[in-house]
């Protein structure tokens, strides 16, 4: 847990929510001299103001070796992962290119960087795959039992494999792999938050998966601590506790629509072909199997407890009150009305008899 000033830090994926916020946080930390954002795309206007203190370099992972060498980077934070194919930007092929090939190139660059001390990798709890024989709670050393169907989950398995190779070759570098649960929060915008934001939410018939979320603020905090302190290893990062999907939908005041699983897979394919993003097999796998991880190791090593899953989800619900169909106060009013109705009816019957 030694902590000494860090020279320059390279953050990939600063044109996206997580990368931009992490870069901004690191730039605001005095213990870090220099923060460089590496991304092939320009950040959208909503993140541009965040990146004031961040030097930006346009370039993909292929150019990483020159950037990392030029800067004599001491830490690399790799956040440039795409979680769902986006048809406007090349679909699944481009997603795999960036996730897998991009990570390979970045790690190759890191391997040759003599001054590199730290590598922080974004991963996902999707690394545990999805199988009916899975234990209910995954610890960091649980091996996936079946190769998952979803593209993102398969990418994650590949990426973690490359990190294992990197660790063998550069044992002097502290490598931190953060397996994040799905992000959520007041204004988080992910495939999953868009899903919960709809008034009517499709679910898999006969399945009520157990879900865990991570508040986006806690994700930023954990990445930040991984950069400034030394926490080598692989960590599950999630909010404690569990919400079942039906429970989450009810808490958000939405209406669940159960769909047969083959129908949902077909629908997700159709949606993909129509050029809309999101809702791939990754989501179907999650909604059939659910995913719960043990965060004991994280809490012990980082001495930090992320907000619970239920609290994080409440924060999201607060931010999306508008779309609620069935609100809590409406239910309370209905309960009151029915109770009063029954009381009156009984009173009338008793008077008459």
């Amino acid at each position, binding site marked *: 847990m030694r902590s000494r000033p860090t020279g320059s830090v390279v953050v990939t994926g600063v044109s996206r929510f997580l990368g931009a916020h992490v870069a901004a946080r690191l730039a605001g930390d005095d213990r870090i001299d220099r923060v460089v954002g590496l991304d092939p795309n320009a950040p959208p206007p909503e993140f541009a103001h965040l990146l004031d203190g961040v030097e930006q370099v346009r370039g993909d992972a292929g150019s990483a070796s020159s950037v990392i060498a030029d800067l004599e980077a001491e830490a690399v934070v790799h956040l440039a992962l795409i979680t769902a194919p986006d048809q406007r930007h090349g679909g699944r092929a481009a997603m795999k290119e960036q996730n897998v090939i991009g990570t390979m190139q970045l790690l190759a660059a890191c391997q040759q960087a003599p001054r590199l001390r730290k590598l922080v990798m974004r991963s996902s709890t999707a690394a545990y795959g999805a199988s*009916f*024989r899975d234990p209910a*709670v995954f610890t960091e050393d649980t091996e996936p039992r079946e190769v998952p169907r979803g593209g993102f989950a398969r990418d994650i398995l590949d990426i973690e494999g490359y990190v294992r190779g990197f660790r063998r070759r550069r044992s002097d570098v502290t490598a931190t792999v953060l397996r994040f649960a799905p992000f959520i929060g007041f204004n988080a915008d992910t495939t999953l938050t868009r899903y919960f934001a709809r008034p009517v939410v499709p679910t898999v018939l006969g399945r009520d998966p*157990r879900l865990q979320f991570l508040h986006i603020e806690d994700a930023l905090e954990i990445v930040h601590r991984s950069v400034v302190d030394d926490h080598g290893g692989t960590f599950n990062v999630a909010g404690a506790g569990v919400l*079942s999907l039906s429970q*989450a939908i009810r*808490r958000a005041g939405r209406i669940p629509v159960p769909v047969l699983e083959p129908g949902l897979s077909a629908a997700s394919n159709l949606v993909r072909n129509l050029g809309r993003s999101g809702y791939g097999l990754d989501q179907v796998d999650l909604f059939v199997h659910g995913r719960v991880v043990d965060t004991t190791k994280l809490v012990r090593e980082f001495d930090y407890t992320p907000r619970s899953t239920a609290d994080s989800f409440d924060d999201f619900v607060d931010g999306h009150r508008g779309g609620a169909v069935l609100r809590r106060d409406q239910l309370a009013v209905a*309960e009151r009305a029915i109770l009063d109705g029954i009381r009156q009816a009984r009173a009338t019957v008793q008077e008459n008899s």
Partner: protein
Amino acid sequence: MTERNDRPSDDQGRPDRAPRKSARKPARRTPAQKTNGTARIIPAAEFKVDPPAANGAVPAARSNGHHPAPLPPAVPDGPGDIWDERVAKGLAFLRRRLAGDYEVDEFGFDPELTDKVFLPILRLLYRDWFRTEVFGVENLPADGPALVVGNHSGTVALDALMLATALNDRTPNQRHLRLLGADLVFRMPIVSELARKSGGTVACNPDAERLLRAGELVGVFPEGFKGVGKQYAQRYKLQRFGRGGFVSAALRTGTPIVPAAIVGAEEIYPMLADIKPLARLLGLPYFPVTPTFPWLGPLGMVPLPSKWLIEFSTPIPTAHLQDQADDPLVVFNLADQVRETIQQTLHTLLERRPDPFGR
């Protein structure tokens, strides 16, 4: 052991059982006596005479299955407010469910749904259909973990549910049995969710150890499908106990093993034959043919009302063997010991129950 166990529950069960029984019996007899016009008086007379007689003969059979406390009074006379209270409680329950205001643990266990919906339904089967008697409840820890190992039978795994109900019914603090189920259970939609919400999880060592470390009572049936899917001719013959994974889970956590012998489940769906090609086609471990299934269609799915006896034996401590969890010899010996205990208890219970469909 039986005598000692019977007494206390017998006394508790008496106040609410006696009126229920006598209230039912006369109702059936009256039609024959109705002709003389005194039908209204006769039941009343019987009401007074019947209980002592019933207490002498019936309670031994009925006492144990009865759940004394939460039974509603048979007649809803009294102050009308009890119904008001119930309606209000029911509505509040519905509102909480609809708003998602309940807790689910990391295994997906939903205690509120289990206590308010699943267990009351199962209790009907447990008490009124199978007339279950339970012995040796004092062998279960009042709190803290234990691994309850039972014999498996009955074509459909109702024995697991009845064991869970018995445990909830008879332990002082109404403990829940966390069942370990085959992965087939968790492959099936709807069934998988019912299993998780009622506290079940996949039978694997990480889950078993996690539950035991959390101080839960864990229920496991090491015979698996070999036990549930055996034919009627094989009844009450314990099958092989697999690799003894349950023993190593207990050893690693130092948890005592409580053997549980269940008599009665074998007769609920007596499997006469197993159509293997059909089972393969449907991806099931067996396709049962019973005297009623598939001949009577859905009606064939009604379990036969056999008489059930469940006995918990003396716990087998494992704390002193904690460092030998990986020794196959220790594991197999312990598994054998558990198996022998259950088999012997089954024999003594069967002697006590000569007629499978008796009272």
